[in-house]
């Protein structure tokens, strides 16, 4: 079952298209990293999913409900933390907890106490007096004790120092061990979520580039370096999955985005006769950089 589903989701701001026919599925129980550069459409997507913004077209479902119909009953099962979230900053941390608690029938006070201690938040300090990191932890603190079925995090680590980030992640893992949930986490930096996520989706220019398990993604991307023999290879019509193709002397380098050992071996024996190939697995970050570059090149050539 998918906890989040979008179907041709689009959103316009005046004449600017922020989202173009976005299709996305997030299976229950997954930790989905929603990656994309700044301005790619991540926050817009999340706001539509949370019914904070209306889509211009298409549809989205969250926890099986049309996101435009998300009501209190669904929100009792959703945790939402955003870097731009406005908390009632006149309250102290304790007052914030006291205010939020009655809205959630499943609120666990023991977990609340545990998280409060773990996050080292001063209960009697006003929210407006908290540092940015503490404020994000306070936002997470009021989103975890009711054990949400879906936790949506919009750029939660932006601007946080590594120590706070670790505490933040540990807080999530604390709940993760005790209940089944789905986490949808957006970030512009894959390094921030690489260790957490088991699925990843890339959005760029308001379009979903791909969304798949990290394991599969890592498996199908290889950096290839071929040392040519005597035969001259045909590089004018490379397969569609080859990206960043370049030749320097007798060296040909590219990224194979649809790598499979058999297919590659067959191609090498056919086009790169007497050659030697070195294939290296790629880090997730490198995969994203490659894809982002490739998309921009396509966009530029399309515009020309």
């Amino acid at each position, binding site marked *: 079952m998918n906890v989040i589903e979008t179907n041709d989701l689009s959103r316009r701001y005046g004449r600017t298209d922020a989202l173009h026919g976005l299709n996305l599925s997030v299976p229950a129980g997954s930790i989905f990293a929603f990656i994309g550069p700044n301005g790619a459409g991540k926050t817009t997507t999340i*706001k539509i999913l*949370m*019914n*904070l*913004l209306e889509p211009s077209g298409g549809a989205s479902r969250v926890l099986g409900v049309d996101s435009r119909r998300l*009501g*209190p*009953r669904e*929100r*009792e099962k959703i945790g*939402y933390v*955003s870097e*731009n*979230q*406005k*908390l*009632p900053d*006149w309250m102290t941390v304790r007052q914030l907890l006291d*205010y*939020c608690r*009655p*809205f*959630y029938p499943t609120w666990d006070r023991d977990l609340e106490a545990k998280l409060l201690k773990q996050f080292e938040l001063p209960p009697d300090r006003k929210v407006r007096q908290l540092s940015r990191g503490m404020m994000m932890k306070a936002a997470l603190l009021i989103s975890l004790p009711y054990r949400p079925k879906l936790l949506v995090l919009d750029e939660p680590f932006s601007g946080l120092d590594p120590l706070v980030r670790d505490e933040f992640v540990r807080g999530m893992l604390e709940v993760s061990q005790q209940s089944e949930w789905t986490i949808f986490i957006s970030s512009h930096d894959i390094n921030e979520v690489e260790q957490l996520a088991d699925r990843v989706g890339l959005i760029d220019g308001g379009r979903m580039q791909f969304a798949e398990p990290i394991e599969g993604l890592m498996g199908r991307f290889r950096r290839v370096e071929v040392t040519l023999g005597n035969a001259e290879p045909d590089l004018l019509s490379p397969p569609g999955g080859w990206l960043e193709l370049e030749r320097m002397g007798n060296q040909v380098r590219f990224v194979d985005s649809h790598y499979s050992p058999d297919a590659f071996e067959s191609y090498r024996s056919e086009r790169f006769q007497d050659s030697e190939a070195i294939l290296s697995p790629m880090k997730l970050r490198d995969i994203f950089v490659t894809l982002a570059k490739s998309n921009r090149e396509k966009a530029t050539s399309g515009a020309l």
Partner: protein
Amino acid sequence: MNLTLHIAIKDFYRLRWALLLWVVAIASELALASIQATLDVEGHVPFYMAAWTLGNIFVPVIGYGLVMGLQDDDPVTEGDAFWMTRPISGGRLLSAKALVLALLCLVPVLVCVPFWLSHDFGLALLGRSSAEVLWRQVLISLLAVPLAVVSSSGGKFVTNTLIGAVTLLGLALLYPLLEGSSLPEIAAPVLVQKGWLILAVWLIASAAIALNQYFRRRTKLSVKILVAAVIACFAISMWWSRSGAFPAAPVEHYLPAPQLTEVAVRGGAKVVLDGRTLRILSVIPDFSSTIVIEVSESEPDAASGFPRSLGEAAVATSAQEHYLLVSQDDGSAMTADVARKPEELHAGGLRYFRTTLVFNPSKDLSGGVPTNMAPWLEGAVLVKVGGRASGQFRLKGLPPSRK
């Protein structure tokens, strides 16, 4: 309901200091008005000015600002407000805010009640005074609500208020342009009709704007409704000219004796005609050299034995009759001649008269004129002399006792 109360309690807690300031301002106004009313010397002026400033500027402004304070914590204009990310529906939030707003409107009444009780207000007068104070705060809230719900912050609310004030000023300047240099005299029933119609339009627009913002957050649409309401109100004030049976309610102001009939006394004080009693509701000193009492009287009420009508009697024998205002304090008296024809008015099928009585202390009081006439008026008796009938009106003024 529990969650609605939970939100309401949160709002009251957040507004606690502003509320306290408001209560202190209202109580101070009452205290200062009481003090100035007891003073015979010129020293009452600062108290009067302070009471006037508090009552006419601070208290309404704080009451107006409180509406935005209430809205400010849970804005309904933007998509990233905290409440929207929590299990709080627009309906629940609206219920909570409406509850707090209703209770806020009651605050001035609750502050005034002990003061009124200490000044011997009867049940009827207490009800009427409460309604009057409540009504004033309801009107202030009604003015503030549509602006508050389309403002995302206190700063924007102030800006929107200023824009609204400038707009009203601009519209007021349009009157002479559209009507010429001399504005036509408008009959009282038409004025009342206009008032009720404007109120109804504003009420409907406010409700529509609030519902739209809480449930759909279409701020642009709300602003359009607001602009349309302002234009409609202006059009009504400008061109509505119908009169007749509608509305019947305003006639209540001029019900036959012995029911309460409110009359105005110059200088801001209020007097209520209660059967045979003219009761001073609030004593605000009159700085002019005369005391002016405007008496409104409905058609005869034979059963009460009350003068058939002050105005009617005055019409009949205006040359002979006059009114005496006799102080119970020192026995001195002033005379008011009915020098001109009482104004005849019609509303809801009833005829009533408005007579203006002018007393001149400097002419009549041989012992010198007190700076503050309020103590002199305390317990004074208004006597009508001459004409077909005569009657007495007892003045029970504030403060209750200065013996």
